[in-house]
């Protein structure tokens, strides 16, 4: 049964703690979120479908999910690398770097957006040489969306993988090496399987955070309909036309997607913990 205790425990406070948790969760999160659903249900199913399958909406959802996926993938690869470097090597300024990794989490997204746009615009510090050398434009293209989403998703993979790498027993690697495994083999057969659950979690967190991102993206995206317009901006644009039902329709699609994604991550973690426990 949902939220019913399975086994008796001597510990006190289950009813109080769970009751408070559910009440607080309902008041602050579930009931307000249900307002979005309720507003959507004021329109018919056909109208809902018409809203969410309009070309601009589909394009924006594709961009939001696609760019978030790409940014999370890049963060998975480089985040793993950063975590590895921070855990395994000593170099000057390591602690500073370690502390700074969390910065995108704490910096207001609007500030991040403005700073990134200034840097990656055609006349910016990085945008100008990039344009001159490769002809690639970053700001005001879908690539700009990707850059902003990479920035805000950066801490998540590093922070989930780091503790696992710290716990990783070096003996295992050394044993593998002394048995004649190449570094590549050691990495793919020993290290990667161990960090995989954490890596996937970090990836999913970075993805979940990036899908809904608004503040940093609108400055750098260029916001061209069908090209570089993200889904949260569509919601705003619909609100500007006083189309609340249309706005909440898109919001509901995003909410359901986020929920399913997070549920998948949590089931994955639960499954991997159980797997690890059974193996012990």
């Amino acid at each position, binding site marked *: 049964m949902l939220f019913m205790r399975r086994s008796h*425990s001597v510990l006190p406070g289950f009813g109080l703690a769970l009751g408070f948790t559910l009440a607080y*969760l309902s008041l602050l999160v579930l009931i307000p979120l249900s307002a979005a659903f309720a507003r959507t249900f004021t329109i018919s199913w056909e109208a809902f479908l018409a809203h969410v399958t309009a070309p601009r909406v589909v394009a924006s959802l594709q961009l939001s999910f696609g760019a978030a996926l790409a940014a999370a993938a890049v963060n998975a690869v480089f985040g793993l690398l950063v975590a590895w470097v*921070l855990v395994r090597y*000593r170099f000057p300024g390591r602690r500073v770097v370690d502390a*700074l990794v969390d*910065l995108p*989490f704490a910096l207001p997204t*609007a500030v991040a957006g403005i700073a990134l746009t200034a840097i990656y615009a055609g006349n910016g510090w990085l945008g100008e040489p990039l344009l001159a050398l490769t002809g690639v434009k970053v700001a005001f293209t879908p690539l700009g969306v990707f850059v902003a989403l990479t920035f805000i998703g950066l801490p998540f993979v590093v922070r989930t993988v780091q503790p696992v790498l710290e716990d990783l027993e070096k003996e295992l690697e050394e044993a593998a090496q002394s048995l004649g495994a190449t570094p590549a083999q050691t990495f793919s057969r020993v290290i990667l399987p161990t960090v995989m659950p954490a890596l996937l979690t970090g990836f999913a967190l970075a993805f979940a955070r990036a899908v*809904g991102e608004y503040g940093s993206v609108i400055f750098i995206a260029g916001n061209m309909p069908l090209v570089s317009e993200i889904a949260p901006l569509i919601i705003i644009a619909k609100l500007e036309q006083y189309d609340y039902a249309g706005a*909440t329709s898109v919001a509901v699609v995003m909410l359901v997607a986020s929920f399913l994604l997070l549920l998948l991550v949590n089931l994955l973690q639960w499954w991997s913990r159980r797997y690890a426990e059974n193996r012990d």
Partner: protein
Amino acid sequence: MASIASSAPLVRATARRRPVAWVPIVLVGVALAYLSLFLFVPLFAVFFEALRKGWGVYLAAIREPDAWSAVKLTLLAAAIAVPLNLVFGVAAAWAIAKFDFGGKSLLITLIDLPFSVSPVISGLIYVLMFGLQGWFGPWLAEHELKVVFAVPGIVLATVFVTFPFVARELIPLMQAQGREEEEAAVLLGANAWQLLWRVTLPNVKWGLLYGVILCNARAMGEFGAVSVVSGHVRGYTNTLPLHIEILYNEYNFAAAFACASLLALLALVTLVLKTAVESRQAREQRP
């Protein structure tokens, strides 16, 4: 772990045997290049732009009354949101980590949900609830109560976006610690309060602090959700991130970045605190 000797080479592997010396250098180099592109350069740009017109402009921007009222509102919102989510985090973690019940994954997912909800939606839902056209709007208006476009709305939005952080920090920690210690305490006659104050909280204090720090950092920096419920009344319902946007829109770039650097500094202080907490924690865990 190996300590850094004074004659240590620039980059040194801590593993005892590392056959290829260039691998660490390349890896560190690539990692730093990646971080530079996405992290260091933007951070540097904030401070560079803030000080471009000199210290005078910088200080004037920070001392401006509207900036001050924005700082105060930001601190107030964080001061309410963080303790609320702290109490919630402890309760949720206690229920989830110390007991077995059905639907745990679902509950954790629901707690996580605010993390991945677009900030635009987070603000919108409170407008749908408490706005004049919303569910409780007319009732609130009749009783002269204001929620959205006033401080309570800003606090609510802040609570929403920082909702999961303390709980998410505590749940895995308390799960890993198991329940033996608490069970022993109960058998020895401890009551619920003693259990909480003497056994559970001391065990998780560093995780708790880390959660609070994350929660606070996010609370002060939130932009999108607060923007929807604020009403942008200058000197009145503007938080610091919103004030920055306003300055930017007034072409007052130096002042905008000056205030931004204030938030970046706040973030940096937070991160230094966090690092201190972590090293403290690591030292305590070592026997």
